[in-house]
């Protein structure tokens, strides 16, 4: 063990700082202790890295799952009765039932519980915590994204699909080139909201020892015997990320809307 934080602080702090009024000096010392001493800022940075990786890949998994599930659900609800190919009909009937069970179970149980089931049960033999977290949060997010996309698809006038089909485009082609781009534009604000929810939801990853941002903050807090300042720091980082992302989505939205007039 090297020197404690107060010893080190007294040896490196410039003289004028040590002569500041006591309250102010204590505050600066706390900042030093929580963010700089022992390279503690690296813990936040590593935690933030994990949080962002986890969120990004979970969202990716969520969107892929969401698109698949929503298309199965919409296809069956809207066109199931007209399906002429018995094999396709059978396939969609089964797929639709599976999707419904998935949506019910995932939306009906807490994400922390799902995370722990996946981590301590299904993925118990794996040491890759981020991978397990990505799977858990991705599967969770997929359920919400699926319902989002479904509402987006249903908001598009039926005439759009008919126009595509009447030109000879297949169902999948019409979805891809005509329906989904419009649906995506309509649900973009809600999708951004899902991302914001997700980035903060990953804060429970610490339950399985995944060193995300919140977990890093709590470790520092434990080591420095100070909870208030590390948690303020963690909160500020989340806030900045969310604000930056909101600004980014706002720009994208304006660009997409510009094509309409």
């Amino acid at each position, binding site marked *: 063990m090297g020197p404690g934080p107060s010893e080190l602080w007294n040896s490196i702090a410039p003289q004028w700082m040590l002569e500041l009024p006591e309250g102010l000096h204590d505050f600066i010392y706390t900042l030093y202790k929580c963010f700089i001493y022992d390279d503690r800022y690296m813990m936040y940075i590593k935690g933030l890295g994990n949080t962002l990786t986890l969120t990004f890949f979970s969202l990716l998994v969520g969107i892929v799952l969401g698109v698949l599930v929503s298309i199965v659900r919409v296809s069956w609800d809207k066109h199931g009765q007209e399906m002429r190919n018995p094999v396709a009909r059978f396939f969609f009937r089964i797929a639709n039932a599976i999707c419904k069970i998935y949506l019910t179970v995932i939306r009906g149980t807490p994400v922390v519980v799902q995370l722990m089931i996946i981590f301590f049960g299904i993925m118990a033999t794996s040491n890759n915590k981020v991978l397990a977290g990505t799977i858990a949060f991705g599967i969770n997010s997929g359920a919400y994204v699926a319902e989002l996309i479904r509402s987006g698809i249903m908001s598009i006038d039926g005439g759009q699909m008919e126009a595509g089909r*009447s030109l*000879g*485009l297949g169902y999948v082609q019409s979805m891809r080139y005509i329906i989904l781009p*419009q649906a995506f534009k309509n649900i973009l604000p809600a999708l951004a909201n899902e991302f914001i929810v997700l980035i903060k939801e990953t804060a429970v990853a610490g339950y399985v020892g995944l060193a995300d941002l919140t977990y890093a903050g709590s470790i520092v807090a434990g080591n420095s015997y100070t909870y208030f300042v590390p948690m303020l720091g963690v909160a500020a980082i989340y806030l900045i990320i969310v604000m930056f992302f909101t600004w980014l989505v706002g720009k994208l939205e304006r660009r997409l809307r510009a094509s309409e007039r």
Partner: protein
Amino acid sequence: MNDNVLISVNNVKKYYNNGKIKALDGVSADIKKGEVVVVIGPSGSGKSTFLRCLNLLEVPTDGHILFEGVDITDPKTNINLHRRKMGMVFQQFNLFPHMTILKNMTLAPMKLLKKPKEEAEAQALQLLKRVGLEDRANAYPSQLSGGQKQRIAIVRALCMNPDVMLFDEPTSALDPEMVGEVLDVMKQLADEGMTMVVVTHEMGFAKEVGSRVIFMDGGKIIEENTPEELFGNPQSERLKGFLAKVL
């Protein structure tokens, strides 16, 4: 079968709610090459359902439809291939709002006929010129008037070089002053020999352009004849009553 027959409709039925609603109750008709068949009738008579059955946007409950000799009502038929040859124009235009006019027109030729971009765009521009809208190629649908949108919808369908054009009340959603410009394009198309099936309330168009008029009511064809005969000498009471109200 007569070589001249493009679409042959044989006793087609379309029921909804397990037969409680009979939108089409046994309809048979032949559409010959180069014909302009106008379908008229009161609302709820099944005329739109009839038209939408022709390219299987509505799948008939019973009966058969032959297009260019192929039974398209057979579940084994790949309907997408045949729809390429059947252009359709809708009451609500149904342009793709997220694409420019040019993209609206080139999407299907490029994806389905694998036309190179330049070729598809050249063809689209030529068609736009024909309807006097070549300067709107890069506009979005929301920037156009209803009449312009419908003219675009017509040329979008023409981009696939269809053998027949189906019109589902193409002027019903338009302001009165814009009806003329759309009918002019349709008339021009008819003069060029395009086979057309037109569901409309425009009796003037039916009289002037139609080579045959079909009157439907209650999911059945009540009368069909040349426009002169059908309008000048209606046989059934229902047609007489209908004409008395709309003319």
